[in-house]
């Protein structure tokens, strides 16, 4: 099986023809006219399009096992492929929690069977994500799932002694602890960023200091024990300042920011529509500006979606009882183009680093986040940067509909995604030849992505 991408611009630079054979980039040549091109089984017209390494998402919730009514590995994989991703890291807050080798292997195997993206499970730090004793981290590391990232995401590893031990312990297999930074005593009953909006709406505030205090503590712990710390979904200007200082001091910390925190602000809660409820909460415009600056600067290493599907009955409720979380996989690249590329804060090489190279390195995925070069695995995404599309929840591949971007026009349409040379998504459709799980996922929404194509 060979694929030829004609005339696409790697990182937005000079147009090339890309020949892919046996899952790898076989040749990169300056874009040639019709007859001079090599033969291939499949040709993708990349004229005018940008070619990037396949995107890597360090933070998704695929809900399987336990909440298959909200998402499955198959439907989440379809959303990922359509969003330009070739690898996703699945958080362990499933039911049962992914705190044993058995559960992480199940998730990993489901990902392999679907085959649309590499699904890399994240293991829970503590048994049942209860924050009291370490899960069998080594067994998960040694399993077929080869777990290297551990997190109790959704909950903070709040006990400082337990966090210290977790950081130390994973050094044995070059693991990393991905911390959901939220001091629980400061966020009892918290519903929304603590500030003018929460005060006015009468919703219990989630103060930024609850995030910042944990990040400050954890960067010191990581430095003390010489372990890698990764900070999930950084949401405040104060957190960016602490991370900047920590990195300047040489502490071994990396951090991610979500697309929604790069674009949306807490005043959206005025509607009390829980589609805007997320944890950590949407913050202020000043925080958004600081997060964008931090991402441009590299204080924030990567973008991660925190893709969090929820069934309708968990969102069509009063704000206080709704589950927090937002869909993100199919809108992430577009939001980054909107917030970072159009403003000139990131060029396409910057996008490739923040959405592919850095997350692959942090998560220890050697086959992803590679440069576009001969001999590298053909994990690629072809993007039309000038096309715009309207986000329509019913047309997304996820089983859930809780996108906060419904009705927004966003720039950037994924034309094709390739995983080791196989086309996993093309023109808004999941690629041909995928297994029954993926087929059924797509059959649920036969017009997946069609809105995007129609607007091109």
């Amino acid at each position, binding site marked *: 099986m060979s694929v030829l991408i004609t005339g696409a611009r790697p990182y937005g630079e000079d147009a090339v023809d890309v020949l892919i054979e046996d899952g790898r980039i076989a040749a990169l040549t300056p874009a040639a006219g019709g007859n001079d091109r090599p033969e291939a089984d499949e040709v993708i017209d990349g004229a005018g399009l940008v070619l990037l390494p396949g995107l890597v998402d360090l933070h998704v919730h695929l809900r399987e096992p336990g909440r298959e009514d909200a998402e499955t590995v198959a439907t989440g994989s379809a959303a990922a492929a359509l969003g330009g991703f070739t690898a996703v890291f699945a958080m362990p807050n499933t039911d049962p929690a992914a705190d044993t080798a058995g559960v992480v292997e199940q998730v990993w195997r489901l990902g392999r069977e679907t085959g649309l993206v590499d699904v890399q499970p994240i293991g829970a730090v503590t048994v049942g994500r209860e924050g009291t004793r370490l899960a069998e981290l080594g067994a998960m590391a040694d399993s077929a799932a080869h777990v290297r990232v551990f997190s109790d995401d959704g909950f903070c590893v709040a006990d400082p002694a337990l966090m210290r031990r977790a950081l130390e312990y994973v050094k044995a297999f070059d693991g990393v602890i991905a911390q959901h930074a939220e001091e629980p005593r400061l966020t009892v009953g918290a519903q929304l960023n603590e500030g003018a909006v*929460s005060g006015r*709406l*009468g*919703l219990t505030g989630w103060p930024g200091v609850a995030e910042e205090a944990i990040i400050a503590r954890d960067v010191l712990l990581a430095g003390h024990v010489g372990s890698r710390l990764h900070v999930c979904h950084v949401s405040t200007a104060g957190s960016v300042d602490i991370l900047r200082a920590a990195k300047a001091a040489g502490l071994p910390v990396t951090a991610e920011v979500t697309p929604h925190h790069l674009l949306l602000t807490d005043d959206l809660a005025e509607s*009390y529509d829980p589609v805007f409820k997320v944890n950590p909460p949407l913050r202020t415009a000043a925080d958004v500006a600081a997060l964008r600056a931090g991402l441009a600067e590299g204080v924030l290493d990567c973008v991660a979606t925190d893709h969090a599907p929820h069934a309708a009955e968990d969102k069509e*409720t009063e*704000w206080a009882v709704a589950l927090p979380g937002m869909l993100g996989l199919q809108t992430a690249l577009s939001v980054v183009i909107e917030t970072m590329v159009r403003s000139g804060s990131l060029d396409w090489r910057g996008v490739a680093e923040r959405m592919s190279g850095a997350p692959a390195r942090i998560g220890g995925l050697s086959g992803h986040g590679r440069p576009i070069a001969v001999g590298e695995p053909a994990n690629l995404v072809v993007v039309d940067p000038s096309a715009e599309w309207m986000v329509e929840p019913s047309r997304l591949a996820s089983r859930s509909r809780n996108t906060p971007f419904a009705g927004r026009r966003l720039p950037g349409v994924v034309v094709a995604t390739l995983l080791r040379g196989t086309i996993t998504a093309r023109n808004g459709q999941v690629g041909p030849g995928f297994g029954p799980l993926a087929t059924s996922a797509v059959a649920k929404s036969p017009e997946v992505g069609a809105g995007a194509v129609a607007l091109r």
Partner: protein
Amino acid sequence: MSRVDAPAAPARSPARADHRASPSVVDRASADVAIPGEPQVPPAGTGIASAASATAGPLGRHLLSAGDLNRSAAVELLDTAEQLDRALAGREVKKLPTLRGRTVVNLFYEDSTRTRTSFELAAKRLSADVVTFSAKGSSVSKGESLKDTALTLEAMGADAVVVRHSYSGAAVRLTNWVRGSVVNAGDGTHEHPTQALLDAFTIRRRLRAGQGNLDGLRVTIVGDVLHSRVARSNALLLTTLGAEVHFVAPPTLLPAGIETWPVTVGYDLDAALPDADVVMMLRVQHERMSGGFFPSAREYSRRYGLDARRVGLLPEPAIVMHPGPMNRGMEIAAEVADDPHRSTIVEQVSNGVSVRMAVLYLLLGGADL
């Protein structure tokens, strides 16, 4: 606060009701008052269809926040309450036929004898059919979602839903699922607009002879502002009506972003009293007393309670208000609560029925009196 500075002006009907002869006009107790309202008189018993037409008038379609009212709408509502009050005064049968055939549902997820009874009386005095769902003993206590309950009420044809709920924003959410008017009767720690209206009505009667606005009056609101829907709604409404609102509270019981509110804030009650025209004491919920917001009930009472000595600091005409229910001896001394000269606490209750009648009347476009 933007919601005070630029409230959305409710759409006004081009054809005002003031000079319209209504077929359902009955013996008017006070012939010189004309009640403005929705010009169209819906036929009785049309349920949803009639509610859907009730979109004009000073209130718009719903009453969710005191910020929904601009100054003229607020004054008009208070005037309407006065007129309804006068229309009922001296009548042997305390009933007006104006909402005959309309259905008002009281949906109470929180116990609230005072507010529930007040809304029931208001609707009944306007001859509406009233149904009350209390959380206890109905499907809402069996885990039915707010949405499903709303769809049920919708199917039954409620013209107005009066909702009391322990979660902020519940009334706003309800508007997504019912076509009738929604009246917020208190949502969590967010708002309680009809309480603010009855407070404004009471202040206006006591200090402005029941007319006009509240320009220049200084209202000092004392206590747990953080968790108080009464404080939020009063801050919005009283400033809209021209009053200056001053909050006095321990710093732990002030909400984040209070500096963006159209109020002034202090921590010293004694200092605030000499130039207050109105002092309004907020209830301290029992669960806050053990919540670590202040050291003890005794210390709270000493620093923020209104006793006879502090009442002595008030200027002569100043009044003392409390939304109830009171913790006597905690935020207010019994002798202050029962002071017939200063205390308006009992009047507030009876005024509550009047303003709630006005709210239902204006929302549902009742027939002329």
